[in-house]
Each structure stands twice: as structure tokens, then as C-alpha cells.
């Protein structure tokens, strides 16, 4: 035990003396949370639009005011002719143009209907569909108020939508669980594989192997500090989520931490496996990034919903641990679900962890790999 503790202590010294390791451990997670939380947004806020008001009467002015009064849009430009639309889009400052036909108020009063054109910037499809959706919502809202005021005849069926768990449809709800998933697997797998491979590359593994230390002591000693530092990371991220983005953990915090521990163990097992298959640090970094970062980003359901993918990707994503962890963490943090709702995902992760640990402990050698000269 004393030998083991000496090993862990040595590992902590390595970490705290290496500026780059510290940056990767703590700087990158904080930066990712802030970047994903603030910069990458899928909800709409203060989008610039332009208005081409051919009517200039009561209805068009009221509607413009309504649109501007929402926190989603502000009117960047007032256009005077159709010719200016193209130019306005090309400048790139506006996401949509709203065109009111001439005498819209008269048309509403006379025929009980009118048309408002919306032209959106289709070069950003996601934003375009959000923008048109929001504007359509405002317009139909306004038109129903007109209907009731003017005609007060038959009541219309008005759908009233409410977003459960996330009434404001805020994208942090989606990103923060995703970022935790990404960061934990990256840090655990990347850092452990690099730290083990570094001993091989520097030749110190040779001396460690000749010592009476058992292989499990070397491996566990190397990953223990990363286990604790990753936990610290989880707590920091959760605190940031709460204080910066106002996203509390709705479910049980001990359950969340326990699930994170399981996932950290899984990441460490992947790292050990990567380290067993290479003796060059660049390879370890490359494998960790390529094999973990990209699938986690693309196939875990963190950004792109799995339901929308072709079935084959659905099956591929099933072998990726992040997919299951994203579900677990969303369930606990946002839905406030208890263990009864996530036991299946937890069991899958536990199974994967066990399997990886068995494989990697088998692959770790008590001797040097045979290096062909």
C-alpha cells in the first residue's frame, strides 16, 4: 500500500508540474462549457431582420412593432424597394425580410384576409427555419387577435404549446450534458493513455517493470489521480452550469455523481486499452481524438438527434458509451429522473466498463513488448 501511495503521489507531482496537463485538465473543460454555452446556440436571440413596408398603414406598423417587441428580433433595416432585398441579404446582417403588401389594413377589413411574405436567408438552414417559425408564430398570434376583435364570430382552435422540462427551449439544456459527456471521455481516455505511453517513451517503464511493483499497481497508480481530478471537473462543470447558465440538477446529485464515476472508470479503461496498443505519444493522442472525440460529437445524440439518423447509425451509436451516458445525464439533470428510469443505460455502461477493464488488464504486459529493430 505504501508503494502504491508513493506511485500516486509521484503521478500527482507529474500533473501539477506540467502546465500543459493542467490546461488540458481544467482550462479546456471551462472553455468548452463557455463556448458551447454562449457561442454555439440553437435558440434565437436578437436576430436582425429587414422590413419592406409597402402599406405603411395601421396593420403593418402594429405587426412590425409586435415582432420587434419580442426578444427574438430587432429591425435592422427598413427597405424601400424589392431591389434592395438582395443587397440586404448579401451584406449578411439580416436573417429575414418581411414584406407587407400595399394596403394590408384595407385588405384585412374588406376581405378578412391578407398575405405577408417572409423571405429567410436559406444559406443557414437551421437559423432560417427557426426565424420563419418564430415570425409565423407572431403573425398568427396577431391575426387571431385581429379576428377576435374584428369579427368576434366563430372561435378558432388555438394550439397552446408548452415545452416540458425546458419551457424556454434553452440550448444549454442540451449542451451541458453533452459537454460533460465529451469532456469526461476525452480527459480520461486521452490523459491516461498519454501518461502511460509517456513512461514507455521515456524508458521509465523499463525500470518500473523491473521493480517489484505489480502491473495492476502501476496501472491503478497511474489512473487514480485522473479519477479524482475528473470528479473535480464534474463538480466544477455542474457548478458552472448552475451559476452561469442557471441550470440546476433536478434529480439526485449523489446519483449523478455515481453515474459520472462509472463513466469516468469507463474512460480510464479506454485510455489503458489505447496505451496498451501503442508506444508513441502522438499515436495515443491521435487514437483518442479520432476514435473518441468525433463519434462522441456526431453520434452520441449530443448535437444531432439519433432519431433523425438512418437506422445503421443508430446501431453504430449503440456501441458508443457516450450515447448511453448522454441519456443518463439528461434524465437526471433535466428531467429529475431517478435510478428506476436509467437502470438499463447504467447496466450497459457498467457492462462496457467491465469488458474494457478485462481486455486492457489482459493486454498490459509484465514485460517489454518485443521491439523489432
Amino acid at each position, binding site marked *: 500500500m505504501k508503494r502504491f501511495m508513493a506511485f500516486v503521489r509521484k503521478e500527482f*507531482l507529474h500533473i501539477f508540474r506540467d502546465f500543459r496537463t493542467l490546461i488540458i485538465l481544467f482550462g479546456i473543460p471551462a472553455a468548452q462549457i463557455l463556448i458551447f454555452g454562449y457561442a454555439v446556440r440553437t435558440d434565437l436571440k436578437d436576430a436582425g431582420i429587414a422590413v419592406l413596408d409597402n402599406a405603411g398603414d395601421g396593420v403593418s406598423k402594429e405587426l412590425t412593432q409586435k415582432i420587434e417587441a419580442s426578444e427574438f428580433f430587432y429591425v435592422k433595416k427598413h427597405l424601400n424597394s424589392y431591389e434592395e432585398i438582395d443587397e440586404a441579404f448579401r451584406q449578411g446582417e439580416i436573417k429575414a425580410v418581411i414584406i407587407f403588401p400595399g394596403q394590408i389594413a384595407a385588405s384585412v377589413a374588406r376581405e378578412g384576409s391578407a398575405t405577408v411574405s417572409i423571405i429567410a436567408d436559406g444559406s443557414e438552414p437551421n437559423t432560417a427555419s427557426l426565424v420563419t417559425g418564430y415570425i409565423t408564430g407572431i403573425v398568427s398570434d396577431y391575426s387571431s387577435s385581429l379576428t377576435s376583435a374584428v369579427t368576434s364570430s366563430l372561435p378558432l382552435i388555438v394550439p397552446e404549446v408548452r415545452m416540458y422540462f425546458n419551457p424556454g427551449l434553452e440550448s444549454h439544456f442540451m449542451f451541458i450534458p453533452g459537454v460533460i459527456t465529451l469532456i469526461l471521455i476525452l480527459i480520461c481516455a486521452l490523459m491516461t493513455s498519454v501518461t502511460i505511453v509517456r513512461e514507455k517513451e*521515456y524508458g521509465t517503464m523499463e*525500470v518500473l*517493470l523491473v521493480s*517489484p511493483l505489480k502491473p495492476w499497481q502501476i496501472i491503478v497508480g497511474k489512473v487514480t489521480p485522473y479519477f479524482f481530478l475528473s470528479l473535480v471537473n464534474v463538480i466544477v462543470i455542474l457548478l458552472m452550469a448552475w451559476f452561469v447558465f442557471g441550470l440546476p440538477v433536478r434529480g439526485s446529485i449523489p446519483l449523478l455523481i455515481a453515474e459520472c464515476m462509472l463513466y469516468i472508470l469507463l474512460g480510464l479503461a479506454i485510455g489503458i486499452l489505447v496505451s496498451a496498443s501503442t508506444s508513441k505519444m502522438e499515436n495515443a493522442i491521435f487514437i483518442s481524438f479520432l476514435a473518441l472525440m468525433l463519434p462522441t460529437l456526431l453520434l452520441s445524440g449530443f448535437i444531432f438527434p439519433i432519431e433523425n439518423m438512418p437506422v445503421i447509425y443508430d446501431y453504430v451509436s449503440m456501441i458508443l458509451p457516450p450515447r448511453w451516458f448522454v441519456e443518463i445525464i439528461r434524465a437526471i439533470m433535466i428531467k429529475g429522473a431517478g435510478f428506476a428510469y436509467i437502470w438499463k443505460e447504467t447496466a450497459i455502461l457498467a457492462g462496457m466498463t467491465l469488458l474494457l477493464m478485462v481486455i486492457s488488464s489482459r493486454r498490459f504486459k509484465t514485460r517489454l513488448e518485443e521491439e*523489432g*529493430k
Partner: protein
Amino acid sequence: MNAVDATSITQRFGKITAVDDVSFTVREGELFGFIGPDGAGKTTLFRIAATLIIPTGGRMNLFGLNVVSDFRELRNHIGYMPGRFSLYTDLTVEENLQFYATIFGTTIHENYYLIEPIYKQIEPFRKRLAGRLSGGMKQKLALSCALIHKPRILILDEPTTGVDAVSRTEFWEMLEGLKREGITIIVSTPYMDEALRCDRIALMQQGKLMGIDTPAAIRSSYGKRIYAVSHRDRYRLLLALRAMTEAVGPEPFGEAVHITLREGASVEDVKKSLERAGLEGAEATEITPGIEDVFLGLMNRSESLKV
């Protein structure tokens, strides 16, 4: 009991045979040297002895313990210094020593007497990071770390490569001190002058053992007279000696060129040939063969055998 008993050790890496049917014994308390050029198989042989590689063929026992089957027990008794510096450069001198002491289940204090002559030279820098030490100091620290658990055998793979001349001499004095403590040492070196300090030396080339004996015996077993030929224009001298039939295996050594004579030829014949080649006033004197002469002789013999 012998410290090392190696029988027909062979190690292949794919098609390459790094160590080829090597047998030797090292007595307890002996300072045993391996010399040979790079790629001779010394490092592989040492890794087998250090329980790091399982040999393709043959057996090796250290103090009666097999390097393959008894490696766990054996690892308590081995002090191993790999060929390249392999301590933690981001830990201080003291932290390195402390770490190795603890993982070998001992303390610095317990075996301090053993490392004291070596460690006290680097002790003033004990708070310095190991990566910032000079080459000689790094070797002293590495030796201290390999010694801290009082191993019965030290396995040192080219410990003085890349170390300055003064530190090399100091290092060998330390090894002799450790020998007096009863520690068996096997050491490899590319430097012939260091080999002279060993009790016995083994000459290795292309995975094969060319011969094992004391330095003195190896020199006397050479069996041929060696002449050192010198001239102002050493380059032309070497060319001329290579061209002539009377001299065999000319090799440049410092200022002179060492040769042996073809059977039936005399020193005078060589001098005459040199004069004919325009190299008047060349000196030729008989010398006692050094380890290098023997080694190069053995190498030449094996090459001519192949042809």
C-alpha cells in the same frame, strides 16, 4: 552459486537474430563486462537478464532463479539501469530517489551507506529537477536509484555513453567500490579502456559471443605480434598499408596504425614497401596488444571465415 548462468540464450525479432546461442557464467561478486559495437545484442541480452524479455531459446538463471519463471522474486534483487536516461525529469533528485526507494519497499535511510559515496556528490542539488542535471550527474543519480534497494546484482547497459571523461573515470571507481561491497555487476560499454577495469570481459558481435576471459588473458591469447606503424602523413600511410600484402588488418589507433604481419614477412619488408610507396622514415615498433586489437582481430577473423 553463480550470479548468472546463461545457456544457449537466443533471441529473435522476426527474421533478425539479436542474440545468437550465447552461453556464459558470472561469479558472485564479479565485475563482468560486455564490449562490442552497436547492434551487437548487448542491450537485448541485458533485458533478458533483467526479466524484461523472454528469450526465444535457452535458459538464464540469476542466483539460481530463472529469469522467466521466477521473475517476480528476482525483481527484488535486480538493480537495472537501461541504456538511456530513464528517471523522471520533472521530479527532483530527491523525489526520484525517494520514489524508487519506496517502490522497492525500502527507505533512503536504510541503505544510505551503500549509495553515500555516489549520492553525496549530487546531494547539493537534491532540490533540482533531474532533467536539469548534467550528463555525469544524471548517471550518478540513476546509479543511486538502481542501488537504493541493495540489489544483489547490478545490470548496467552502457552507463557511461554520452558522459564526459572525468565522470566516466569517477563512475568506474564507484563500480569498483560497489564490487567491494559484494555486489555482482554486469556492465556493457563501447569503450575499450573501460573494459580493462572489469574482472572478465565478453566480446560480442552480431549477436554472438566471440570470447570471454580476463583482459590480460585475452590480450595474451591474441598470439600474434602487433606493430604500431607511424608516419607524418597518416592517411597515405594507411592507404599504403592497406594496399600491401605483407601487412594484415591495418587499423588506425590514435597517431599510429596497428598491423600484424603476414606469415613469412618481417618488419623490414613492410618498411621497404613503404619506402617504395614514397613514405620514407616510417617507424614500426612492436607493442603489447590491447583489448581493441584483440577485438578487431576477432572481428576480422569472423569476417574472413564468412567469406
